[in-house]
């Protein structure tokens, strides 16, 4: 896929496959083109060139079918801050076609598993950051999508919360949901099955973290990234 804005090529002819049930890490510096690429996969943006299928549907000709099968969590945790916790779940559940009974049952289950019983009736804007993050993720997979796209989901939270968050991601994959996550935290790359690293709009590396570390003679993913990032000519946005 390629995406150009005028004379600027944000995403330059990238190609990859993500397997069902995988945790695929989409890494790169700020401005490398990760978000642009992800938006194309979610049906938010049409590629200038190239092809793509998500959950078996073509992103050009069947964007609405793609949207039915995916979940999405943005950097801003976009939930409705002036709605209550359970109201957000009801809204998004309903949008994705879940029946009222199922919505009720799954809401109860979720509240229990997250220990959110007390927060259930609170307005989202009153929740602390860590809670919001967990809630946003739960909302994004509430309808059990085939693939969930996470855009920098762990921004601004402490390492312990981040760890807990990744446990939630593992639970999701255990249920058969494919996770496509972008992040600039290189330590999180270790949690993924495979990662790709974007530099200046191109994919410069694509493999499992272990293989990449061997390939680049690096102790951790951070070093792998440093080596690749040195080649970068683009400034961060």
């Amino acid at each position, binding site marked *: 896929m390629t995406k150009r804005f005028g004379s600027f090529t944000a995403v330059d002819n990238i190609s990859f496959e993500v397997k069902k049930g995988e945790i695929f890490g989409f890494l790169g510096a700020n401005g490398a083109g990760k978000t642009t690429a992800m938006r194309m996969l*979610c*049906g*938010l943006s049409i590629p200038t060139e190239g092809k793509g299928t998500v959950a078996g549907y073509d992103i050009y000709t069947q*964007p609405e079918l793609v949207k039915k099968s995916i979940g999405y969590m943005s950097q801003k945790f976009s939930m409705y801050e002036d*709605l209550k916790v359970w109201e957000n779940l009801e809204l998004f559940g309903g949008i994705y076609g879940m029946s009222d009974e199922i919505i009720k049952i799954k809401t109860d289950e979720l509240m229990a598993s997250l220990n959110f019983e007390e927060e259930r009736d609170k307005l989202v804007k009153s929740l602390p950051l860590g809670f919001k993050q967990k809630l946003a993720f739960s909302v994004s997979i509430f309808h059990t999508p085939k693939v969930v796209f996470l855009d920098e989901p762990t921004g601004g939270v402490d390492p312990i919360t981040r760890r807990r968050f990744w446990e939630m991601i593992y639970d999701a994959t255990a249920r058969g949901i494919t996770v496509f996550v972008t992040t600039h935290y290189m330590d999180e790359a270790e949690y993924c099955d495979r990662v790709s690293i974007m530099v200046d709009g191109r994919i410069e590396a694509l493999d499992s973290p272990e293989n990449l570390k061997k390939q680049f003679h690096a102790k951790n993913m951070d070093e792998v990234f440093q080596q690749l990032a040195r080649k970068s000519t683009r400034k961060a946005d």
Partner: protein
Amino acid sequence: MIKYLLKKEFKQIIRNPFLPIMIFMFPLLVLLVFPWAASYEIKNLNLSVVDNDHSSYSRRLTQSIISSNYFRLTDKSASYNKALKSIENNKADIILEIPQNFEKSIINREPVKVMLSANAVNGMKGGIATTYLSMIIGDFNATLVSELFPEMAGSSSNIIQIDSQYRFNKHLNYQVFMVPALMVMILTLLCGFLPAVSIVFEKELGTMEQINVSPVPKITFILAKLIPFWIIGFIAITIGFLVAWLDYGLIPVGHFYIIYAFAAIYIFAISGMGIVISNFASTLQQAVFIVFFFMMLFIMLSGLYTPVDSMPEWAKWIAAFNPLKHLMIVMRSIYLKGSNFTQLGGELAALLGFAVFFNGLAVLSYKKTN
């Protein structure tokens, strides 16, 4: 699916600290205050007299002017320059200067000039002041003629008796004229401005993206945004009718259902326009500004402040494309004249046209994917 979105919209509106106040307070305030402030009626013209003659005729002239009740005598000055100060201070609107030989000239049947100097910063006021004053002087003149030279007056007087009648608004009540027009303005602000702001707000917050990524169809989302504001619009007009009745004793001559029907079409059109603007604005500030700009333009060219009939051709042309102008004609006609659908056919067609155009544009320009 739309029921979930509608639930969300209603909850958000109710929980918003400002909106409910605005929806109820704003129409009330506008309808209660505006009609009292907004009037061009000229009352209480202030007159300054410079009487250089000090004769019985000059005094009688002054007296007859005052007893006409159009003018208030604010001062008598010794000279024109002194009188001018009153105009400079806005204490007087017009100066009457009576020359020294006033009475003598009249008795000698010689023409005599009196100077009328009016403050014409407000051109209309100046014009009315001079016209009224001239008329009173003319009457005074005629009275004098019939006293002094009875042989001239009374000979073959051709008098055309004019019987003037005012229809639809017998008491020339300005409020009656303003209130229906104000309801249009309120509707426009509530149903054109607010939905647009609501959408751009979601854009800024990022929740719009969440919706775009979901299977919610364009039309469903737009409808869910619009419907609550349609309902708000209806509530607002109903409040308007109540206020008009309770406060001004205004009851429409025509039928309510016709008003509601037109209002529905109008709300549909204007909210569509709001959506179009919101589709092109990227920040809240931009959206507010663009909407404000158009609102201002539309309001000025709608006949709220000044009649469309008084506008030059090119402005009338632009006004033809102004939905507000059409609804104002509708509201005023139904309220005051009792017009029905056939008589307002032109306006009906225009408003329907706008509704189709704006909403079509709204759906087309709203892109989930770009």
